[in-house]
């Protein structure tokens, strides 16, 4: 087949669109099922699983949206994600700054120590973490989720920030020194503002990681007070196992924040989430 002839081009384009649309259907169907299923009642779900709801029934969505537990879980997820992000980015930036711009004995060893943290799958640590958190009485406390999450986020964040900080030219630093800035002032007033794009990237990584995290909250938060959305959704499913439409509404609303975030910050999100893969 020669793609340069009109007929070849037409064939090629048709094939292209077929593949693209099949994949799009594969991706979108489960999500549409949740979205539309939430507007059906259970009888409709049984008898008319594929079609549009008739009549449209917003009750399940309004039920979830007016329940206290849903909003508490949203708040908890947001709070834990923000706190994790602030801590991991803050701590990592300070460490990366020192690694990037100062020479001192043991620097490489210390950096290797942090980088080795990349090698520890989180699941390896969760059991001893549980025992340690129990000892510190951090079970059922948001800190019990925030601090370990931040700690496990450090290696990748430090690696990414260090390579960025290194690339900032020495002249910038010299100018600051001539103006009399010490390391703290240089770090806060000059380095961090210059690093805004990469800070956005690592923040997105931390936010999304925390938002999606399940195993640690599952282990640490046994009381509903601090449950995050993933815990809430799985719990809700257990509670309303026979009420599929209601669970679908809850699932859809739980996915919504991520979808909205993606719609608005698509570029940052993609570059953030894939930076782990390309910056290895």
């Amino acid at each position, binding site marked *: 087949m020669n793609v340069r002839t009109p007929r070849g081009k037409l064939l090629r384009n048709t094939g292209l669109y077929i*593949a*693209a649309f099949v994949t799009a259907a594969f*991706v979108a169907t489960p999500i549409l099922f949740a979205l539309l299923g939430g507007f059906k009642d259970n009888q409709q779900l049984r008898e008319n699983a594929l079609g549009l709801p008739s009549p449209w029934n917003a009750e399940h969505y309004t039920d979830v949206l007016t329940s206290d537990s849903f909003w508490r879980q949203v708040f908890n997820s947001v709070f834990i994600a923000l706190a994790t992000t602030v801590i991991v980015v803050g701590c990592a930036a300070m460490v990366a700054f020192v690694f990037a711009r100062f020479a001192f004995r043991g620097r490489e060893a210390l950096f290797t120590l942090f980088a080795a943290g990349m090698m520890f799958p989180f699941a390896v640590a969760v059991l001893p973490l549980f025992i340690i958190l129990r000892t510190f009485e951090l079970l059922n406390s948001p800190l019990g989720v925030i601090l370990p999450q931040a700690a496990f986020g450090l290696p990748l964040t430090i690696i990414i920030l260090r390579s960025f900080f290194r690339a900032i030219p020495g002249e910038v630093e010299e100018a600051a020194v001539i103006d009399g800035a010490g390391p703290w002032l240089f770090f806060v007033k000059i380095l961090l503002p210059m690093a805004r794009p990469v800070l956005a990237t690592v923040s997105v990584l931390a936010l999304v990681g925390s938002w999606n995290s399940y195993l640690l909250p599952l282990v640490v938060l046994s009381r509903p007070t601090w449950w995050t959305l*993933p815990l809430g959704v799985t719990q809700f499913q257990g509670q309303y196992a026979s009420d599929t439409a209601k669970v679908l509404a809850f699932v859809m609303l739980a996915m919504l924040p991520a979808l909205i975030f993606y719609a608005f910050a698509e570029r940052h999100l993609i570059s953030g989430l894939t930076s782990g893969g*390309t910056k290895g």
Partner: protein
Amino acid sequence: MTVKEPSAAPPGEGRPEGRRGASPRRRPVGRPGAGTLTAFIAPGLLLFLLFVLLPVAFAAYVAFFRWNGLGGPPTDFIGFDNFRNLLGDDVFMGDMWRLTLLVAMSIGIQLPIAFGLAMLLHQRFPGRTVFRLLFFVPYVLTEAVTAVLFGLIFSPRRGFADSMLQSIGVETQVGWLSDRSIVLFVIFGILTWKFFGFHMILYLAGRQNIPEELYEAAAIDGAGGAQMFRNITLPLMGPTVRITIFLSVIGTVQLFDLVFVLTGGGPFHASETLAITMYDQGFGRNQIGYASALSIAMFVISLVFALFYQRYVLKRDLQGSLTTAGGGRS
């Protein structure tokens, strides 16, 4: 950027470096004292020691004991018994088999699909951006929430999947998640739904880094599409492919959320993963020593794989050839 007052520098670092024009010798922001350096590193290091290194070291220690996690530190030292028992544990060996199977399917099916779609979306055609955005959506969703959704889709009480198949004339009597012989394949399908977009984006980035001049030159030399693909695209995509295989394997070793919520590892361990067995032993049965040994086994598997892979497979990528020049270090 108005940094003027040297007095604003914090105390405890001796005289700030504001020796205006004193000497032309280059002075970096610091020769700051050890105190300043420590202050910068301390919070991160403390966090890291306390919540990463300490737990991992603790797991390595506890793995040599029989311990239920209660009543003081472990005392019943049993040497390598926990590790020996792992090798004779059908569930653990089953986990290893299922891991191998999932990895093989990911490399053999999921990644090629992602690769093909990336090549497709690299072409210019109207609507391409929309497709690219859409295909990444599943990756953005929380694994546990995705699992709840698919639990309903493959529900035993005539779920959505059955209705779909019925609408095209296929009557199904399949226990999607309750039949031991197919549950793992259903899970692989869901994993593909969730993760192909991520790999696709990486491939797309890799493809965009291949200079178009190479194709132009090849076209002038009379090369056809298939030849260009085999001699330009494939070799230059090598580094990206190797990275995605690496990420895919490491991710599969740690697989937990999706399967745990979907099936809990059942029926009869047919979909169980290493992390689920560890969770079950540790939190379900209080076999902390045994579960720790399993954690360490997981760690060793990841580590051995990572070292082996970096030594033998990623090695040439790290030597800075043309292929890594555009390796995404932006």
